[in-house]
């Protein structure tokens, strides 16, 4: 069965700092990978996704992620964070078919100091 690990539970950064959130997944087959963001009191929103092609994926709000198949990783990056990026970030994977369930990681809480 597939699983997702996010090793950083809480990350605190100052504005303009660079961000990298780690995500590793466990599954031997073809996967689709996602990053979702949940702003305080709001629902899950898709930041970016990967399912084929260029392993460097660009998403909304200046975020990007790189799929490294050999490392089973899909780390999220942003060169310069803003206070408005304060949120919970979830890495997720689904496997087998595009309609199968999504498995979420435990999430990383990002706090940005103004």
């Amino acid at each position, binding site marked *: 069965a597939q699983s997702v690990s996010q090793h950083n539970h809480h990350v605190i950064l100052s504005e303009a700092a660079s961000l990298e959130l780690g995500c590793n997944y466990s599954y031997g087959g073809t996967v*689709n990978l*996602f990053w*979702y963001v949940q702003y305080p009191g*709001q*629902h*899950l*929103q*898709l930041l970016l*996704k990967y*399912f084929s092609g260029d392993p460097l994926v660009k998403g909304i709000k200046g975020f990007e992620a790189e799929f490294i198949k050999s490392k089973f990783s899909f780390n999220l990056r942003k060169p310069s964070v803003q206070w408005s990026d304060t949120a919970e970030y*979830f890495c*997720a994977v689904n496997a087998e078919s*595009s*309609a*199968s*369930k*999504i*498995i*979420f*990681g*435990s*999430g990383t809480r990002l706090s940005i100091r103004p």
Partner: protein
Amino acid sequence: EPEVTQTPSHQVTQMGQEVILRCVPISNHLYFYWYRQILGQKVEFLVSFYNNEISEKSEIFDDQFSVERPDGSNFTLKIRSTKLEDSAMYFCASIGQGDRPDYGYTFGSGTRLTVV
């Protein structure tokens, strides 16, 4: 942009009572899902639904839970006899069919269920 809508946004119920959470998926979507997020914990898969039947369910989705698509637009989650540990945010999601470049789940804004 099309949305998945969920009602109510917040429901408080007494332990042992039945609750029905409602979702209206995007109109041309065919696959529907329920997830839940207990406060401070990760988002967990409950059940997937396609072609008017459950296609997959997790161990959380026991006999107390059921899903239904009673008409062409609504997708409901029923909890027959709520327990304190059912308190969580429940998210509905849907996707269309086919491997489109813009594929991705659309989540609703959630229903916060509080069992007292």
